[in-house]
């Protein structure tokens, strides 16, 4: 069957099998390998992308179901060469180690901040509780999302460093 959708703002049309999962469509057919596949049961959340602005687990969505809809992946977070504050936050606060869960965590974190710009730590933990990270123990992920909340315009240029030597 033929499926058409918008992915990161670009229209795409492909001939696919009806049973093809969205995660495999993105990875194998479009080469967008930032979205990962970590389990078969919707437990791990490494595959989270946005479908019309809502975080979904793309291992549990058929590519056909995304037809006519707007999909956004981690590759779409960076705009005009500027990293999204959520991406900067993960770097600033050591919110990642192996990086495998990171795209899904960032997509959920960005979606949370879009509807709740100043979440509590408890609300952040709740938002990412459908996703698993084996490396970080979550505290730095919470801090990373909080960093993005407190830096809505991202990292500002470094101040002058006069006298900072020695």
């Amino acid at each position, binding site marked *: 069957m033929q499926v058409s959708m918008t992915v990161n703002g670009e229209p795409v049309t492909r001939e696919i099998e009806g049973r093809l999962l969205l995660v495999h469509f993105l990875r194998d057919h479009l080469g967008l*390998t930032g979205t990962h596949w*970590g*389990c078969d049961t919707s437990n791990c959340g490494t595959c989270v992308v946005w479908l019309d602005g809502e975080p979904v687990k793309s291992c549990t969505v058929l590519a056909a179901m995304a037809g006519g809809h707007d999909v956004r992946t981690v590759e779409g977070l960076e705009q005009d060469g500027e990293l999204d504050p959520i991406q900067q936050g993960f770097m600033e606060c050591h919110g990642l180690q*192996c*990086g495998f869960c990171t795209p899904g965590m960032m997509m959920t974190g960005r979606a949370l901040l879009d509807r709740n710009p100043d979440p509590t730590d408890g609300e952040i933990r*709740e938002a990412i509780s459908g996703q698993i990270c084996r*490396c970080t123990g979550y*505290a730095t992920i919470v801090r990373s999302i909080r960093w993005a909340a407190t830096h809505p315009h991202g990292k500002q240029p470094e101040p002058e460093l006069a006298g900072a030597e020695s």
Partner: protein
Amino acid sequence: MTAVTERRLTEFTDNDQHPVGYGRMLRKEDPRFVRGKGHYVDDVQLSGMLHLAILRAPMAHARIVKIDVSAAQAHPKVKLVVTGAMLAEKNLAWMPTLSNDVQAVLATDKVRFQGQEVAFVVAEDRYSARDALELIDVEYDVLEAVYDARRALDPDAPVIRDDLEGKTDNHIFDWEAGDAAATEAVFAGAEVVVTQDLVYPRVHPAPMETCGAVADYDAVNGKLTLWSTSQAPHAHRTLYAIVAGLPEHKIRVISPDIGGGFGNKVPIYPGYVCAIVGSLLTGKPVKWMEDRSENLTSTSFARDYVMRGEIAATKDGKILAVRTNVLADHGAFNGQAAPVKYPAGFFGVFTGSYDLQAAYCKQTAVYTNKAPGGVAYACSFRITEAVYLVERMVDCLADELQMDPAELRLRNFIRPEQFPYETKTGWVYDSGEYEKTMREAMRIAGYDELRKEQAEKRARGELMGIGISFFTEAVGAGPRKDMDILGLGMADGCELRIHPTGKAVVRLSVQSQGQGHETTFAQIVAEELGIPPDDIEVVHGDTDQTPFGLGTYGSRSTPVSGAAAALVARKVRDKARIIASGMLEVSVADLEWEKGAFHVAGDPGKAVTIQQIAMRAHGAGDLPEGIEGGLEAQICYNPSNLTYPNGAYICVVDVDPGTGVVKVRRFVAVDDCGTRINPMIIEGQVHGGLADGVGMALMEMIAFDEGGNCLGGSLMDYLIPTALEVPDWETGFTVTPSPHHPIGAKGIGESATVGSPPAVVNGVIDALEPFGVRHVDMPLTPSRVWDAIQGHATPPI
């Protein structure tokens, strides 16, 4: 040096004692990961690539009667179907394990655990390969399964490994450590003896990226390139050469970005071999990527120890001896990944952090109809089990003596002046200041206030617990006279090349699965040479581009490869000093090194930087006599001893008496890993291990039913903590450098996984004190805790 780097230096060095230069700098690898540009094995796409899927055994123990692959072969998108019998014709049906056993690549005679590899299909796409598995018809003759190690040695237990000539039981090995007679003498005369049975259940590392490989055999050049999820690419390459008979220089193993390892990616799995065979037979690149269920049911598990602990002491709390008897479940093949002279791994450090008069351990390992493995999940070669044993026993003793568990530990620690300290099982601890580390944890936790709060809550019928553990790890395997894996010494190489413009490339034999090597190792070289870390490229994970070494596991990268990086940089600096003496026209002895430059002693203005020296080394003009051009060096570092990181952990839990639900309210971790290189990365390593520990203590277990069916085969059944089950960690540190490591560093990657489970369990048992509960086996699920509150016996695992 750029302004940004300078700012990091000045901003962060004051935050921590003694970090190696550049301290808390942000990670160099992160820009690609946050853009989704990490490159993992499943991201490898090659022209004409085929996909491999594996048919697995549906039951734990059965004889294979017949396999019919004709329908699968007829599938229009299938290129190849292979069974064990076909591999046997090529002498590839069995492969050696890392413990000198053999393991079936594809089963020929019997299947020996549920999930074992039986056949594989290579097809044009992922889905078709899976479809074709459904078309393979296997007839099995089902046999009784041994699902419990305690049953394995019964005279009437079915013999699992009848493939081994003359094998008539399920016994693998007996191993002992310490002095049995001396220990018995101490126990016989002791005022207090406490005995406790403990089960450390089977758990699984479950990295977020499962295992997989892409094999690409180039028939023209005879070269095999294998992208694989390997924590030890060099060791894997050598073993492939030995197993498959391919010349070693014609094998290139690439471990690209790896989505977590935790020991799960140390062994060679049948799937890797199948991918290689698939590529050899089809002439095309072949990708195999297991799914989560395959990962949980067939790849290397961890623990599965049935232990009896005994501790002897005086009435006033002087610990005299520890003794233990262990039954170790190694699964259907002994695939444990540990140095060959250490069949029980480093369990011998079960004497813990205490100054004892005697200690003894006897261990028996058995085969069962369960997946092979045993050393995985950040266990530092079984130290996880050892620390759990001794730290639970110390708490049981504290309960018996009605003594505060912190006080009991403080009375028995090895004292700083006793280092280097040889334990009663022969391990030489390098350094530690245990009391200082323990008191720092008690200070951060507010220990005395917590005990007051607990007393008030108990008076109100609320269940609050405070759990303590103190661990000593033994990491950085290891000295080549003692430690090898299948004859390969556990040394690590490092190569460093300074380019003409003063930028550098450092090539490591170890490989990162998230530990941040590209940053930490750049920092080590930067500290030694004064070249900014951003100017140093770290290359790792590719056997064609890096020197030989044994890889990353057992917290060995910084203790072994980190030492190699520091020493290779010093070797470069030594040569630079000679070149500088020529440039400045003074003798070598008149030069002093500071901040990336040599200057003439007493005349700091007369100096040349390492960058200027690099240009001279590659440029025109004379060099001092006997000095070759170029500025590079290589080294192979053989550690003289392991390093012994240690730490004090305090866990505060609340238990709901109505439901048995445990909430970890606070967790304080004070780690001493010697010299700290990047405190941000160190804390990250600790955080991750603490979450592992909470998971193991409260929810993680790979259980089996009486038929040998795995009950933990998906993430719906094998529970891993989410952000809601863990607290915001509170970390601290002390710094006691390792005396034999060039920069005083010790490993840190596994400390928290090793040290945290007993802290959580001790906390829960402490909370249950009003009910007289002495012990509950992990995982402390609500039902187990509720049963304990009701006075029911702990259900067997």
